[in-house]
């Protein structure tokens, strides 16, 4: 039954939704809910990045930049321009999409490691603006973020955010699944395997790379805005280079080309540091070692590698 569920188109979305509904029933304290919220928020960004990396085969080491644009939008908009949070969120997401659109055109011509270094540069430039333009962003110390208010309803509290982020993740995953099963999704997967063949079959390769880059930037910006609103503060760390690396690690660890993998990858990298605190000073040694071991034994990522393992066992 599990296998059938995983193979059907929305099975994975249902599985994620079921997990989101069940987790609050078994958690002893709201601390666990906070961890779950972080998993969901990061998952949204990683699902988007996975569309770009796992399906279209284009790497990005700069997605924290888009994440940061979403986060700072909900901080700067209400604080400096009096724009309501929900409108700031939309503006931030649109801005991230726009920047991805403008920047994506030239840099998506690059391939492989060159694309990696170009996106890395882009992310660092964005983060640098957040650090240096202190009049608007509060500089390296960051700034507080006002609460999100929707029609007089103040979105606050762990339980509320649990459901907001959980439902958003389900929607984000469903949209991603829709995309993959559409002509655009097929075009993206085709580009991953052979740009030449895709091009000859009538696919406007440059345009589709741009489309998925913009979509993934939008995912990242939404996630960034959520994190800022939930934490009620934002700092340049949010948009930093290490966060970009973290996103890529989550996507690869969970499994490129797997929506469920994105959620699993995010969950592992959010929950693992919480568990590793028992190692005290040896925390980072353990984290590094676990990453290496995971990648050696599950080289395609947790979900696809395990899927293959069990698939072979049952068939």
């Amino acid at each position, binding site marked *: 039954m599990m296998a059938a569920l995983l193979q059907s188109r929305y099975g994975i979305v249902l599985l994620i939704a079921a997990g989101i509904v069940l987790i609050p029933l078994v958690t002893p304290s709201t601390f666990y809910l906070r961890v779950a919220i972080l998993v969901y928020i990061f998952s949204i960004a990683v699902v988007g990045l996975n569309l770009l990396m796992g399906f279209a085969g284009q790497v990005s080491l700069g997605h924290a930049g888009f994440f940061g644009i979403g986060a700072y939008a909900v901080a700067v908009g209400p604080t400096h321009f009096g724009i309501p949070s929900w409108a700031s969120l939309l503006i931030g997401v649109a801005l991230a999409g726009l920047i991805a659109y403008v920047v994506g055109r030239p840099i998506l011509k690059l391939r492989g490691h060159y694309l990696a*270094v170009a996106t890395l540069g882009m992310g660092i*430039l964005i983060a640098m603006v957040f650090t240096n333009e202190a009049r608007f962003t509060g500089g390296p110390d960051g700034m507080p973020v006002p609460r999100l208010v929707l029609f007089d309803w103040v979105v606050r509290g762990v339980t509320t955010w649990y459901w907001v982020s959980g439902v958003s993740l389900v929607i984000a995953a469903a949209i991603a699944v829709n995309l993959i099963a559409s002509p655009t999704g097929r075009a993206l997967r085709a580009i991953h395997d052979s740009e030449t063949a895709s091009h000859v079959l009538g696919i406007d390769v440059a345009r589709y790379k741009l489309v998925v880059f913009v979509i993934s930037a939008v995912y990242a910006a939404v996630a960034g805005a959520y994190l800022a609103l939930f934490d009620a503060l934002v700092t340049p760390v949010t948009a930093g280079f290490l966060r970009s690396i973290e996103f890529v690690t989550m996507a690869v660890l969970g499994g490129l080309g797997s929506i469920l993998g994105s959620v699993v990858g995010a969950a592992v990298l959010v929950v693992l540091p919480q568990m590793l605190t028992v190692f005290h000073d040896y925390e980072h*040694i353990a984290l590094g070692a676990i990453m*290496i071991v995971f990648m050696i034994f599950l080289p395609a*990522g947790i979900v696809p590698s395990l899927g293959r393992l069990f698939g072979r066992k049952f068939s």
Partner: protein
Amino acid sequence: MPEFLQFLFSGLTIGAIYALVALGFTLIYNASDVINFAQGEFVMLGGMVTFFAAAAGVPLPLAALLAIVVAVAVGLLLHRFAIEPARGASAVTLIIITIGASILLRGVAAVVFDKNFHSFPPFAGTTPWNVGGATILPQSVIVLLGAGIIVVAMWALMSMTLIGKAMVATAANKLAAQLTGINTRAIIGLSFAVSAAIGAIGGILVTPITLTSYDVGTLLALKGFAAAMLGGMGHPFGAVVGGLIVGLLESFGAGYISSAYKDAIAFIVILAVLFFMPNGLFGKASAERV
């Protein structure tokens, strides 16, 4: 004019460090197609091991030698226990492994050593030399000389020795190299060892100027990677030129434009170069056979 010279000296010194890191990236990449994000940790090991060995009473030259040996050992271990078992995995999987290795090595350094900054005395005195109104430290000259010697030695190794030629052959075509009887596994291991040694030597040379700590590697890896790509991945000469250019951009950017945005200036130039030369300054376009 003195300002210009000062910026030039500063940029070349910093650039030499980036160049050595970029060279390390290039060697490993050529042999194994792996982008080794733990490259900066070799530089860290060079400085930290030397400092702690010296602090424990080992004479400085011996301490430096010990540091190189430790770094080479770590490089070989990294290859044997993290890269080799993942043979056949995709490029990004291997990258994540090296990121994991970098976190691990930093963690080990924090526990074995400490989290403070350290330095040891320069090799040739502290009195700066005056050149055309600008000043340069003797140690900076040593760094530049050292980088130069490493580059020449690498060139000699590659073009004059059998092992070097085997490395070049492995880089060009692994399968063909295997068929001619080259033990490509050993060659890849060797490239990790040489890379680690270069990183460690770089770390030893620059620590008297730049100081070192358990976590200096991250940023060096970042800049070195950018430099290697600017030069054209897989091109040793390009890596060195790329490193020097990034260093010069930073120092001239900080001096003439804005110190707050100096890193931005370097990256904007890199983006512009890649826009016109998508394979870096010296990289060759790889034509796809269809």
